[in-house]
């Protein structure tokens, strides 16, 4: 059916566009929340900056042996020679950031520090996450007295400020090691993850899609593993991202209090800042500045990414 004159082709063209459009809206009706959130995340400059910082940090951590000019634990005669009570050698040929208080190459220690810091942060976060998620899932799925007991335990743990709890845990151990630090920082986060997961599972138990699944006769285990857990996990992942930042700050604080890893060879930023950094602040402030800036940047990166993920996932901000 052709209309009069040139209008026909235009109208036909537009009609086709309309058909295309209707087809597209029909199939695109259920754009998933996750894809939506991902799109918003990529549009958010804060998320990009956070992601970039984390990526850089990961690359340095992974390729530390290739990037670092020297072995981080080796003491160099040309550096130890210049060490006195109130002077630590600064930058020199071959040692771009100079020496640490034991005559080791500070630049290499900073670079390897990314690795150790990542190790402590990731392990502390992961252990806390796994234990917390397990407890929370049990509480949320079981309900009744199991739920009650688990929640009372988390109440007790949350009644103490997190750093105090970590201090207590380390102090109760006979001798601090790298592991007491990791475990202490991890345990602090267990109740947070547990409550988070339980809360979101309870909320979902009442939610429409779970009710619908139940009404359709889907088995309980299937509902928990297929419907409830995946949805709760987004919240857990956001929390884990934010926890990582807190974990490295807490580890640094423990080192500062003399409860950190006693291994003097370990190159970890929290340790470098909390022990040597503050001790030699007046002699050579760089020993504090560099690890501090590294910690601030990485913590900032994870906080930025975590906050933007939370914002992107918030259904209030859809569209």
């Amino acid at each position: 059916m052709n209309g009069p004159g040139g209008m026909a082709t235009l109208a036909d063209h537009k009609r086709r566009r309309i058909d295309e459009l209707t087809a597209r809206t029909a199939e695109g009706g259920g754009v998933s929340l996750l894809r939506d959130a991902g799109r918003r995340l990529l549009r958010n400059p804060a998320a990009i900056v956070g992601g970039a910082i984390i990526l850089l940090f990961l690359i340095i951590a992974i390729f530390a042996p290739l990037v670092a000019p020297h072995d981080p634990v080796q003491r160099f005669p040309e550096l130890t020679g210049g060490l006195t009570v109130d002077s630590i050698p600064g930058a020199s040929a071959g040692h771009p950031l100079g020496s640490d208080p034991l005559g080791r190459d500070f630049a290499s220690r900073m670079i390897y520090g990314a690795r150790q810091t990542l190790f402590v942060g990731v392990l502390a976060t992961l252990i806390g996450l796994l234990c917390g998620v397990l407890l929370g899932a049990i509480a949320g799925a079981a309900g009744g007295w199991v739920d009650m007991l688990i929640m009372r335990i988390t109440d007790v743990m949350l009644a103490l400020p997190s750093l105090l709890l970590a201090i207590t845990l380390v102090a109760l151990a006979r001798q601090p090691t790298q592991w007491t630090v990791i475990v202490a920082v991890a345990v602090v986060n267990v109740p947070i993850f547990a409550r988070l997961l339980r809360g979101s599972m309870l909320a979902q138990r009442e939610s429409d899609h779970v009710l619908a699944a139940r009404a359709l006769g889907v088995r309980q285990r299937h509902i928990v593993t297929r419907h409830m857990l995946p949805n709760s996990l987004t919240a857990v992942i956001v929390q884990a991202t934010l926890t990582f930042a807190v974990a490295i700050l807490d580890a640094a604080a423990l080192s500062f209090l003399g409860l950190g890893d006693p291994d003097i060879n370990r190159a970890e930023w929290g340790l470098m800042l909390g022990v040597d950094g503050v001790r030699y602040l007046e002699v050579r402030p760089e020993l504090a500045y560099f690890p501090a800036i590294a910690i601030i940047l990485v913590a900032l990166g994870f906080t930025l990414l975590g906050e933007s993920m939370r914002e992107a996932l918030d259904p209030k901000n859809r569209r």
Partner: protein
Amino acid sequence: MPLLDVRDLKVVFQRKGAEPFTAVDGVGFAVEPGQTVGLVGESGCGKSVTSLAIMGLLPRRGNRVTGEVLFEDTDLLRLRPQDLRDRRGRDIGMIFQDPLSSLNPVIPLGLQVAEVLERHQGKTRQAALRQARELLDAVGIPDPARRLREFPHQLSGGMRQRALIAIALACKPRLLIADEPTTALDVTIQAQILALLKDLVDRSGTALVMITHDLGVVAGLCDTVNVLYAGKVVERAVRHDLFADPRHPYTHGLLRSVPRLDADRGGRLHQIRGSVSDNIPWPDGCAFAPRCDRVIDDCIGATVPLTPTRRRDGALRCTNPVPLEVPA
């Protein structure tokens, strides 16, 4: 001279990182003193944005409002913000859809009524509260003295909407804009609130702009009706004409989607296919075309103007309107 004369009102949302979106596209209508005018349409057709634009309540950033809103010959869009503030609540009152969220949860009801009197009539707190009690009484809230001290969550939904009406009418405005005032309420309460509104505007001679998606509300209340679609007025008619002979296919479809007792048993209820978001992606042409049963080539080819019809106060924006039912 009309009390309110809206001319070529246009609202464009300009959000960062998104295409500008024209929510209201050249809307125009007039309200005579004491008259009740309806703005009808589906959600998303721009009727609420129109009302907010008239009141100057749209956030200034991210929105561009053009056109004229003449209230007693003063263009509200060109008033300084503080001058508009002087008129809001005094010359024009407004009530909103959700009475719970529209009342401040942490302030006693009395103050929320009294503050508008303090502001516009310079009353003292005590005098304002005394009058607030009378106002609550007038809108049918029992035991008003006690209610003054209560908080919104302690009131029922219908009572909250009555309170909002009392606030909007406190300073005896000449115009009241009601944006879906009954949508959030139970059906029985809806009828009470509508009856109250009708009674109040009739008695005080207040003009009313009624914004609704509910044709039942229009049938019971409005003198003239403007049907909006995708930010444009597509049909205007006095109430009787509109219900008797809808000309625009959209209006026609709307009326036929309402279940009727006198319809044939087993007959299917009419539906308009698609939704408001099925919009055509170019500015000219009729926005309703993708959903229209009567679409012809001319509908999508060129801009369709709003042209007066021969009926009283009537206007229509359609190239292929539903034919008038000619009495046999």
